[in-house]
């Protein structure tokens, strides 16, 4: 019977060409590969840092995820993706995931990172540091908690999955009923960017007189930020506050330098350095360029270099030095002035000097001034942080809320005042304040710059020479300073000091799925249903009443 029909169908195709087209075109469509349908949830995820520094690889070397999601209390993570809240995730878990060869981690970040308790902050910072200790092939993603994601998270927590069942049958039954989620990150794998160009922005104010014969003061701040995920690194305190201080100093001193009566006999050199969080690569390259170039540079006989890093919080200012400045030197005068100004203008602020020798054995330099000190240039860093606690300056917790505009304004004022006293040689006590009224540190300016910097992720790999942040900073500098230059540099081709990777932000899709066992059960159910339909149809006597059977067979269901 079947063969007859087959030949009938073939006959049909022989005689009618359009009909055979109708038959074959869908067939061709069927054979062609299908594209995946749109998912239930699509959301942006931020990948963990990935970089090479001085030949060692750090962070997450893999970007692609296509595995099922699992909650934290699962025992086996092989080919699974852990979905967890930031506060529940620990270093031990991370190590366990790596040894089990997990397929990925999705970490949900709480809404407001600044409202965490101090011990929670400590936990996050330690976690960030531990995760970046070495390289791993485990894709680690961060994403802010949304209602949909929380739903997914709770759904995962409460669903019973096969891993926790007692017996094999139990496991089979449970997994057949379970709801799962497939997490997928598609797209290109993260790639190294060997031609990545880092920008240093340099500007200067020439002193009164012949420029080459005047002493010079350099003010340096690195403008990039660092956190566990590049797209979450807002780095407001470190080093948004330093950048704001530098811009504000440039503004105020440019005002003074335009009038011949207040034109000091000092050159001022301003540098916004790039890739500072990667062992001050920008500063290192800038110093090399300046000192090794044939023409006489202002930097070679600089009086002192003032680096600013993290001054947006706290009620103290520490002057970090590698070698305490000799009494009588310009640097020492600046420090004395700072102490004096602080006691006059803001008695609550403590100013102290912290002496720490450069440890060449360590991988990382503690402070930016050490780059200068290594080249025997007198330099120091101002910061509200007492020790070189690496964690507090390199965390995603360093958001805009971490900077108090009032404190920052006050600190900028103190530094500017002390600098002015040193430059204009106003050493006797009882000196009136220089920066008052029209020359005041404007808290609105500070605030708007801070808001801008605190709202843009500023990890070094996001800030290439065309990035908006670099352009804005350059524009900001050139408003006050003459001769603003971009120094663009890239890592050495053969022996790269640093390599950045792309792929900071990806799109993750969460699909709700059922396990394969479920389909098996479904197939059993459907075939028994069809068997019943067939049996009913067979039992019906097939005589004159066409159409009798099939109706009954359907109504039988």
């Amino acid at each position, binding site marked *: 019977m079947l063969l007859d029909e087959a030949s009938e169908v073939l006959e049909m195709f022989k005689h009618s060409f359009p009909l055979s087209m109708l038959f074959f075109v869908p067939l061709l469509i069927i054979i062609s590969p299908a594209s995946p349908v749109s998912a239930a949830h699509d959301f942006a995820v931020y990948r963990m840092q990935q970089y090479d520094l001085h030949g060692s690889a750090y962070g997450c070397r893999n970007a692609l995820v296509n595995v099922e999601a699992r909650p934290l209390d699962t025992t086996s993570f092989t080919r699974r993706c852990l979905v967890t809240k930031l506060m529940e995730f620990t270093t031990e878990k991370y190590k366990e995931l790596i040894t089990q060869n997990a397929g990925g981690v999705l970490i949900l970040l709480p809404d407001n990172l600044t409202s965490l308790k101090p011990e929670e902050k400590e936990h996050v910072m330690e976690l960030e540091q531990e995760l970046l200790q070495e390289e791993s092939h485990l894709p680690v993603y961060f994403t802010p908690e949304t209602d949909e994601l929380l739903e997914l998270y709770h759904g995962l927590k409460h669903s019973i999955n096969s891993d926790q069942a007692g017996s094999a049958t139990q496991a089979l039954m449970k997994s057949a009923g379970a709801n799962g989620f497939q997490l997928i990150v598609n797209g290109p794998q993260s790639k190294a960017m060997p031609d990545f160009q880092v920008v240093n922005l340099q500007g200067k104010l020439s002193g009164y007189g012949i420029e080459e014969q005047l002493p010079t003061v350099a003010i340096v701040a690195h403008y990039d930020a660092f956190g566990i995920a590049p797209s979450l690194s807002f780095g407001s305190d470190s080093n948004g506050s330093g950048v704001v201080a530098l811009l504000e100093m440039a503004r105020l001193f440019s005002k003074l330098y335009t009038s011949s009566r207040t034109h000091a006999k000092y050159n001022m050199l301003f540098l916004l350095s790039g890739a500072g969080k990667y062992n001050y690569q920008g500063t290192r390259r800038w110093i090399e360029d300046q000192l090794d170039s044939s023409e006489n540079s202002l930097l070679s006989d600089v009086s002192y270099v003032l680096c600013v890093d993290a001054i947006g919080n706290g009620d103290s200012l520490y002057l970090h030095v590698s070698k305490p400045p000799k009494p009588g030197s310009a640097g020492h005068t600046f420090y004395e002035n700072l102490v004096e100004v602080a006691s006059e203008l803001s008695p609550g602020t403590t100013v102290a000097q912290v002496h720490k020798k450069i440890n060449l054995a360590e991988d990382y330099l503690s402070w930016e001034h050490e780059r200068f000190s290594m080249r025997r240039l007198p330099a120091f860093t101002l910061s509200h942080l007492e020790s070189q606690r690496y964690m507090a300056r390199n965390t995603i917790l360093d958001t805009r809320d971490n900077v108090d505009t009032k404190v920052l304004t006050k600190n900028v004022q103190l530094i500017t005042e002390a600098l002015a006293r040193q430059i204009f040689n106003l050493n006797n006590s009882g000196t009136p304040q220089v920066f008052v009224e029209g020359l005041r540190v404007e808290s609105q300016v500070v605030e708007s710059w801070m808001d801008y910097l605190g709202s843009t992720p500023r990890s070094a790999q996001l800030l290439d020479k065309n990035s908006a942040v670099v352009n804005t900073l350059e524009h900001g500098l050139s408003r006050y300073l003459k001769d603003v230059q971009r120094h663009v540099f890239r890592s050495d081709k053969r022996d790269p000091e640093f390599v950045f990777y792309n792929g900071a932000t990806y799109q993750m899709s969460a*699909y709700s799925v059922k396990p*394969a066992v479920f389909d098996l059960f479904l*197939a059993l159910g459907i075939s028994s249903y069809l068997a019943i*339909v067939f049996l009913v149809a*067979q039992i019906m006597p097939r005589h004159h009443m066409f159409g009798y059977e*099939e109706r009954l067979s359907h109504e039988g269901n």
Partner: protein
Amino acid sequence: MTFFHFGNCVALAYVPYILVYKCSGLSEYSAFWKCVQAGALYLLTQLCKMIVLATFFPTSDISSDSLDVVGEFLKSTVDLADLVGIHFVMSNVAGKGQLKFLIAGVGWATAELIMTKFWPLWVGARGVEFDWKYIQMSFDSNVSLVQHISTAALVWLYGRTDLNKSFLPVVVTLLGLSCYRPLIVEILIHAVGLGSWTLLLAKAVFTICVGLIALQMYLGLSVSKEVNSYY
């Protein structure tokens, strides 16, 4: 989900059609080509309906939650063309007696199944995301098979001269019901707030009732005819 899942859905949707074709005796009469013709007429009818709908019922961009009963009623009225189409199939394509409405019903339903259900299944049921709606859709196609056969039977009954006149209002009512079924379903969704499973169940029960009544009338007719003559 997987290709397996797609296979499940296709089996659920299509195998009953094949079973009906085999077991009802259609295959013994080599009615395949006639069913295809019925399907082609289905396509033609849908085209005409679409032209009418596009001309007289332009879609509004404003999608409101409230139900426009009058508009929907008018739209459902266009579905009367389906009945005309089925009648046309029976009067022009299929030849022999009672086989007529089976051919019309099965051909019509199969064409609808292929046109409206296959592509969503192919795209949806094979995707990564799991959703019960593809299984429901497959079940629904079984229900509509019964629905189309009983509609065809009703149309056939309506055209019979030997039908007891007292049955005529019942036939017309049932035809009206099957024609306005989408509207009734829509109203049910809005008024009672039926979920997808209960809605499917309601459709099945409704269709079975219509089918049973049609079957009863058809049986009465064919029994009386058996007494009278051989067709």
